[in-house]
């Protein structure tokens, strides 16, 4: 059995049915879903952006309001995929037994994992987009290049979906997710450059932050939102893609181990 868990995933196009199922449910529950992922970033944007913006003025040639908006967009993409990949996937896997029902059809665990990852990324995009609109309406965005950040939301979602699915596969209950949020998501949110440039951190901390994916997400989203030239875009994309790829294989292994018993 162990050998079976370690082979590379072989999803088929039918994985999109899982994605479609989630999209249909998302459409039904649009209100609560949006309020959840939308409310907090907007409060940060209004509270910190207007408040601190008065004192800070510009950071690296970008108005602080815009600087912060870009960071919050990246953090939102991270949070949406992480929470969908942990809480919602766990619910579908355990309480609802959704996957058990699906595994009696021609779909396989590999399809489920691929479909869920694509869905997490899609939801990151869908639920982060309104924040982009709000940032625009509040005057934080003045450049059309900000539209280029939209596919990055998807990529960031893909990058965070894998680890979240691994957490869901390991969890005994929802409480387990507190470890991941407290030990990784929150520190990334605070230290990866959402609120201030990573360059202000001590050198050793910068190394750690640059290994983690959120700083790379911000390094792509911020220049696009602010209308500045991208620096090392290939590197940042490569890091996010690498996280997505490794996360996908890991998620497949762990979800298989959880579902196939």
């Amino acid at each position, binding site marked *: 059995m162990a050998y079976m868990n370690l082979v590379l995933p072989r999803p088929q196009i039918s994985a999109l049915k899982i994605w479609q199922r989630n999209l249909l449910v998302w459409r039904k529950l649009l209100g609560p879903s949006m309020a959840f992922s939308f409310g907090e970033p907007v409060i940060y944007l209004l509270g910190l952006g207007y408040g601190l913006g008065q004192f800070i003025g510009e950071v690296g040639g970008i108005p602080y309001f815009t600087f912060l908006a870009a960071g919050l967009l990246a953090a939102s993409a991270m949070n949406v995929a992480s929470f969908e990949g942990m809480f919602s996937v766990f619910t579908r896997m355990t309480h609802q037994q959704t996957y*058990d029902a699906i595994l009696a059809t*021609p779909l396989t665990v590999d399809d489920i994992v691929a479909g869920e990852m694509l869905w997490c990324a899609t939801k990151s995009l869908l639920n982060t987009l309104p924040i982009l609109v709000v940032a625009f309406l509040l005057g934080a965005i003045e450049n059309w290049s900000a539209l280029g950040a939209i596919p990055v939301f998807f990529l960031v979602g893909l990058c965070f979906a894998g680890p979240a699915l691994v957490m869901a596969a390991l969890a005994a209950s929802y409480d387990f997710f507190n470890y991941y949020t407290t030990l990784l998501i929150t520190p990334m949110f605070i230290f990866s450059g959402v609120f201030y440039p990573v360059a202000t951190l001590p050198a050793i901390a910068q190394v750690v932050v640059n290994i983690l994916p959120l700083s790379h997400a911000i390094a792509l989203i911020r220049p696009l939102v602010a209308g500045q030239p991208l620096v090392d875009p290939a590197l940042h994309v490569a890091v996010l893609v690498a996280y997505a790829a490794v996360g996908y294989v890991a998620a497949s292994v762990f979800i298989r181990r959880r579902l*196939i018993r």
Partner: protein
Amino acid sequence: MSLASRPPDAVVLARGLTKKFGERTVVCGIDLTIPRGGCFGLLGPNGAGKTTTLRMIIGQSPMSGGTLSVLGLPMPDAVREIHARTGVVPQSDNQDPDFTVVENLRMYARYFGLRPADVAGRIDELLGFLELSDRRDARMRELSGGMKRRLSIARALINDPEFIMLDEPTTGLDPQVRHLIWTRLRQLKASGKTLLLTTHYMDEAERLCDQLVVIDRGRIVTQGSPRGLISEHVEPHVIEVQGEAGSVVPVLGGIPGSRLLTVGETHYCYASELGPVLARLEGAPHLRYTHRTANLEDVFLKLTGHELRE
């Protein structure tokens, strides 16, 4: 086993089917040959290994040992194709709570690669067949247990399967719903589908199954047709008496050609001849008894014992 002795049209052919959870073996190398057509029953007390066996047959639980082919295809290699041609009613209902009745069926059709537009007629038919037409737009939380069960059966039929597995399809349901489900299962059988069901209700097995195996602690205890099993294992006459052991056992114990089985406060006297038992009962007018013919429950009690199982 050799190819020559393989029945040509077995829907399920399992040899040495084994399941271990860690050190614990819960299915201990069972052989099953389920012929095409008819209803095959898997009987056994709680924890006997029925669900585990079904889950192995459908490839949802990997076998720890043995060989298995389903619909003539090898499991697990052909799992996608086997699933495309099989319907599964799981032990506990697992519809999508975010969808209505009809949305659940549409989504399930999509998992089989069927387009909702193409199965619209089929969905109406299935809702009618399981008497759910007036609930088509209901949410899962608005459905009773019996309705959810019927929806599970409708869902299992969405791909027009030739083989249908049902894990305890009527457990916990009221008599009306059970009769409706039995009627529908008989209709499915009559339309040529092969049914495999697990149950611990003997009346259900007797009504529906053409062939059955009784399993206990992961092993096959006996197999055959319901009638065949009854005549093979149980004396034709059963006298049932309620009461304390102290007042019943002295009266009915030790009658030649009979045996007495006590389950709680119920005493079953199995006899090949009725006369000697009735003679004893005449001498004990305080005992109230019923006389009936032997049924599958008696086989079950004899073979799987009568101590309580969780």
